[in-house]
């Protein structure tokens, strides 16, 4: 099976073409912006490298967040178009799952972290198992203080991976049994790996069900303080 994986939910963007379990071409860059300019040239480059025709694919996999809102949407819109043009399934991947999979070694409980800005990160616990990781609790948006408190109260040795550098420098200092590690960002290859597992189990959603997972409501600030809700005729 040929997978196209798209990852633009974080400050690192990547695209990977995977055949079976082998990455046959990939492209990556670090930038919080410019996802829309990166994606098609990266795909174009990878398809040329691999010698694949645009429609000769079996699955499109995409990171749907949490992460940078615009990046998530650019990636999803691109993935929707590719899957639709080729008439193949579109499989959504949770960004924390992809980060955690990249750290699937050792015995420590893995805390995957993705920057969602405004002083918060998305964080979720994972447990390493042979061949990967499994979720070991629920994911949520937390402040640095909340994450620190959570790690402090967690008795197991922890490995914090992902964009923990987005947190204030003292967030993880002096915590007993807590180490930090890589990867810093989810990779398209990990997105493809997760999607392959789902595809093999037949877990293929309807394309309309593939939605961003922002984990945060939009900020709504309309400043019309000098206007009344209702006019004098109301």
């Amino acid at each position, binding site marked *: 099976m040929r997978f196209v994986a798209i990852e633009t939910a974080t400050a690192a963007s990547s695209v990977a073409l995977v055949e079976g379990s082998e990455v046959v071409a990939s492209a990556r860059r670090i930038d919080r912006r410019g996802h*829309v300019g990166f994606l098609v040239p990266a795909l174009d480059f990878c398809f040329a490298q691999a010698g694949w025709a645009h429609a000769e694919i079996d699955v499109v996999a995409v990171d749907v967040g949490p992460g940078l809102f615009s990046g998530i949407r650019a990636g999803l*819109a691109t993935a*929707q*178009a590719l899957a639709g043009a080729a008439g193949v399934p579109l499989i959504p991947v949770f960004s924390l799952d992809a980060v955690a999979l990249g750290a699937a070694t050792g015995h420590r409980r893995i805390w995957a972290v993705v920057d969602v800005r405004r002083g918060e990160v998305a964080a979720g616990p994972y447990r390493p198992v042979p061949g990967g990781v499994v979720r070991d609790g629920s994911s949520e948006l937390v402040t640095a203080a909340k994450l620190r408190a959570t790690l402090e109260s967690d008795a197991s040795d922890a490995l914090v991976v992902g964009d923990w550098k987005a947190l204030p420098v003292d967030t993880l200092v002096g915590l007993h049994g807590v180490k930090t590690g890589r990867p810093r960002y989810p990779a398209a290859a990990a997105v493809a790996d997760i999607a392959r597992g789902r595809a093999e189990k037949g877990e293929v959603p309807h*394309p309309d069900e593939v939605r961003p997972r922002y984990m945060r409501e939009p900020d*709504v600030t309309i400043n019309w303080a000098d206007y009344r809700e209702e006019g004098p*005729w109301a």
Partner: protein
Amino acid sequence: MSGPIILGLETSCDETAVGVVRDGVVLSNVLSSQVDEHARFGGIVPEVAARAHVEAIRSLTHRALRDAGIHQLDVAAVAATRGPGLAGALMVGFAYGKALAWALDKPFLGVDHMEGHLFAPTLDHAGFEPPAVVLLASGGHSQIVHARAWGDYETVGETIDDAAGEAFDKVARFLGLGFPGGPAIDRASEGGNPAAVEFPRALADRPTDLSFSGLKTAVVTYIRQHHAAGDLPPLADVAAAVQEAIVDVLVTKTMNAVAQTGVRTVAGGGGVLANRRLRQRLEEACAARNLALYLPAPVLCTDNGAMVAAAAAFRLEAGERTEWDAEVEVSLRLG
């Protein structure tokens, strides 16, 4: 009838819209309006708009293709609005359109939203052609363009503060009429006397530029004073007078631009051009001066995908292509 079939995507603001056009004929034109989603906030929220676009773009594109009775491989080129507009909103249609074009091995065209509005009148008026003065007015933009030829445009006047549609929105909110303001004021003004109140017409010294923020203040002041004095005219009169002030400014400045440029053709585009009083006043003004007037049907005045496809058809024929690494341009400017 064998010209190229163009798929046009429009996501610059609060309408997800997709159209299919061939040889200037609209094969389909569908949209998923977000009005209800924004109405509860009293205005357009950029993040809400961007979220709604990504939920709608895929199925809407499929619907447009189905309504047009074509397969995606029949499309000769895919076009999407590149700007101006809201960054997060633009990105959805632009990313989707670009990837679709690439995946189908077709050319991609990033289209200037305002050029799309300029092409809208061609879709229901075969005779429309530059040179023309075109009034473009909506909630996000208000300008008067001198189109010398296709692709050769000069902005001869524009708003120095609020857009005309924004003025409608803000006043409507103050009057308790809700969002969006244009249609609400249009409805509320029915049977009202537009001469009941004389609201100010700004920028008399700048013949083709527009300004609406003073009007908003004048309405607020007027209503507070007369409400306090207990002699407030009926809502229909005030709504009609507000509408008249906005329409009057738009018509006067457009006619000034006609005089300045010497063209004999007038056209319009943008959501405000769906306003019935504005259409009537433009018809009267053009008839009095013997000018040809081309106003698109209201569905082609508001943002739509067909206009994007129409502008793209012209660009495609001129041999243009948009590079794969192109980004949206929030402040794209027409001439």
